[in-house]
């Protein structure tokens, strides 16, 4: 199966791209869509506006209150959800084929004319603030926030506010803030919709053109420049959270490059060899051989859309085993950086990554997300067909050079959170 032959892509109207892929599944369709937006385009002094504005989208429109919308969705067994990331407003839906028109019209209505009522905002704030209070007890979230605050400058999209700072920012948000953000971001210009399942492209594109025509043009504000991450220096931090029987640990640093950089894929493969899956080095040693953790792994994060990302190892340890666990983890990182990886490891991980890529085609949701993400990055659909060849063309020298260039074992940021 080639994506370039299976995916129908068209600009149905100026500012709306539609990518459809018919599969053998009967009657159901999964939709994954986005428009440029997210926290990158929120005011510099309150990035939380993006999250709250997006969360208000399903709280009613000028035409229907939230209960009427819910009744429509419930009566046809469909679901729509909206979310905000750093660079996009995302929407996903699944529905029966016969209900596509209803769903597309509803998505467009919710994006274009949310009611943004004061009482709904206050209710939403109560819930969001409650969740944030709960996050204070979350050892993994607290450790990750601390890591990102150490790696990035405050104006970088990957920087994170503390939970208390987020609470303060959310409390300040007004309906006027949301309306201003909505007026700039929620419009036509960068809408992409990937639909996978039992779809007829011509019919669906006609529905999209008709329903999304109600959106006015997007008027995105200029995005302020940000500095790439600071070069890491050795840093150790411990966050005390009482009454926790397991601690979370992050060890990582910035990589200074994004996904489009020529070294990205060799570096990604190197980090996969270190801790990408159960048969990778960290799980085989720190967990399987030494029994020090239930979960450990390593990956690159937040390196898309021209953002310089970071690599990290994450693990959980019992407080009484944490010292030993961190020592063992660092030992593996040091071996990996000093000795590099072997030819057989590179060849095995190539098979793993290519095989996983194929397995990921098993669901309509997996396919829709893959198609959308590829298009958001400005890549031709044929990139999805070429990806296995790109992986297979990586050499061991490229992988080992990437480790030497982007990983500095003497200057890692290490954060632990738990009852320590």
């Amino acid at each position: 199966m080639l994506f370039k032959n299976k995916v129908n892509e068209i600009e149905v109207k100026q500012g709306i791209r539609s990518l459809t892929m018919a599969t053998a599944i009967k009657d159901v369709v999964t939709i994954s869509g986005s428009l440029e937006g997210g926290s990158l385009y929120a005011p510099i002094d309150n990035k939380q506006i993006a999250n709250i504005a997006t969360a208000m989208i399903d709280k009613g429109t000028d035409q229907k209150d939230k209960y009427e919308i819910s009744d429509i969705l419930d009566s046809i067994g469909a679901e729509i959800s909206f979310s905000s990331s750093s660079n996009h407003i995302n929407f996903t839906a699944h529905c029966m084929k016969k209900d596509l028109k209803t769903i597309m019209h509803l998505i467009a209505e919710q994006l274009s004319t949310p009611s943004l009522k004061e009482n709904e905002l206050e209710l939403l704030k109560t819930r969001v603030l409650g969740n944030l209070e709960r996050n204070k007890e979350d050892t993994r979230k607290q450790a990750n926030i601390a890591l990102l605050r150490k790696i990035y400058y405050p104006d970088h999209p990957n920087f994170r506010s503390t939970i208390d700072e987020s609470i303060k920012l959310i409390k300040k948000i007004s309906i006027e803030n949301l309306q201003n953000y909505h007026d700039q971001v929620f419009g036509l210009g960068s809408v992409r919709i990937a639909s996978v399942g039992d779809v007829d492209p011509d019919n669906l594109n006609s529905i999209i053109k008709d329903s999304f025509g109600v959106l006015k043009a997007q008027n995105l504000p200029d995005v302020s420049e940000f500095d790439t991450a600071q070069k890491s220096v050795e840093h150790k931090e411990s966050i005390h959270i009482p009454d926790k029987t397991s601690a979370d640990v992050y060890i990582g640093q910035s990589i200074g490059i994004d996904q489009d950089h020529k070294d990205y894929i060799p570096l990604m493969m190197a980090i996969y060899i270190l801790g990408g899956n159960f048969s990778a080095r960290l799980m085989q040693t720190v967990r399987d051989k030494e029994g020090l953790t239930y979960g450990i792994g390593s990956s690159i994060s937040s390196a898309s859309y021209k953002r310089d990302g970071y690599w990290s190892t994450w693990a959980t340890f019992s407080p009484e085993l944490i010292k030993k666990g961190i020592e063992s983890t660092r030992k593996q990182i040091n071996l990996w950086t000093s000795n590099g990886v072997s030819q057989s490891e590179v060849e095995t991980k190539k098979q793993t990554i290519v095989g996983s890529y194929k397995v990921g085609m098993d669901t309509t949701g997996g396919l829709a997300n893959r198609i959308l993400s590829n298009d958001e990055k400005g890549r031709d659909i044929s990139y999805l067909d070429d990806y296995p060849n790109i992986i297979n063309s990586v050499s061991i020298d490229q992988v080992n050079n990437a480790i030497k260039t982007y990983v500095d074992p003497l200057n890692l940021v290490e954060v632990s959170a738990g009852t320590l």
Partner: protein
Amino acid sequence: MSNNNLAPDGFNFIQESHGINEYNLKSNGLRVLTLSDRSAPVATFMVTYHVGSRNEAIGYTGSTHLLEHLMFKGSRNFNKEKGTAIWDELQSIGAQINATTWNDRTNYFEVVPSEHLEKAIAIESDRMRYAFLRDEDRQPEMTVVRNEFERGENSPFDVLDKNIWATAYQAHPYHHSTIGWRSDIENVSTDRLKEFYNVYYWPNNATATIIGDFETSEALEMVKKYFGEHPKSDNPIPDVYTAEPDQEGERRVVVKRTGQTGIVGVAHKTPVGLHQDTYAFQILSKILTDGKSSRFYKSIVDKGLATSLFMYDFPFKDNGLFISYAFLTPDTDNQKVESIILNEYSKIANDGITQNELKKAKAQISSDISFSRDGSYAIAGALNEALAIGDWKFYTNFIENINNVSAKDVQSIVKKYLVEDQSTIGWFIPKK
């Protein structure tokens, strides 16, 4: 062959339901379920053992789960010494591989590029009877599982849920959670785990499910080739005979721990999973918490009293629990939310539900079922849970049974089961 209900040599064809065929391997009683769907180049192979934490007792709670971990440590043909460790063999081809344990079953699965289906079958067959289960593997794995237990204990919800089950069930093994008690995880012997393995890990206590891109006769031949070498168990598979005594009054449990927000759980005993009332509980669950127009969303979340809701409505082989969970907003009183939940039950007991609520709930479930067929793993996973409660056709006939539920049926189950004397109320109270 597969779709005209003929069985290849060595198999009995048992039945077909909604495209899924059941066979029985004559030589040892292994049940095999197949559904060929060649739309994506992927296949899922899953072995469900009809053993779970319900088959454990004091001293070896958590054994089913610990054994599941040891099953990845090597077997006769797939082990590190030979350079054929299970994870390496399967992850090197990009397979998704894992295993899970729950009250009534343990399952091992591989989602593989379809050309590698045979490898998955060979591995599962090998470890069905030839797993090493060595003490030197149990020792480091015990601390791995203990960390899994500790991670769960980090969550106020997990702790409250364990306490509710332990309070609601006194004699029946649903009293303890699948991960077991910490001291049992730490102290159970390798010999006890081997005994467990030798009692339950046999072809006549297992179901192999194959979904996705394969030709049925070829897949069955592979099953016969690998699993056919195993005999039936020497002894009958023992069943659980412990019955929970009747509950004679409301029970309450409170967990206090450092935290920021409270949780309320209101639990009631439910019938066995295969009871016809199970379907009315599924409808009730949708009416109470699914979507913004659901009853609890309007009366609890929309009043700013909770950040979210969770309905625990899973059917089990034996009597289970129907639990309404509310995750409270800061400073919300547990009692207030508990009263709202119980009042809503009273309203339904007295006034019933509307036809519109019933219609919406059925539409939601119908759509859920359609999407539960999205991908080979999703189908195998759903069959696995149906097998656990005792009949894989629970999955294929589910929507038909749901459509037979009336508004009166829902009112009846609320009157019959959601009563004070059968309730267990749990509160998590944060200590600041």
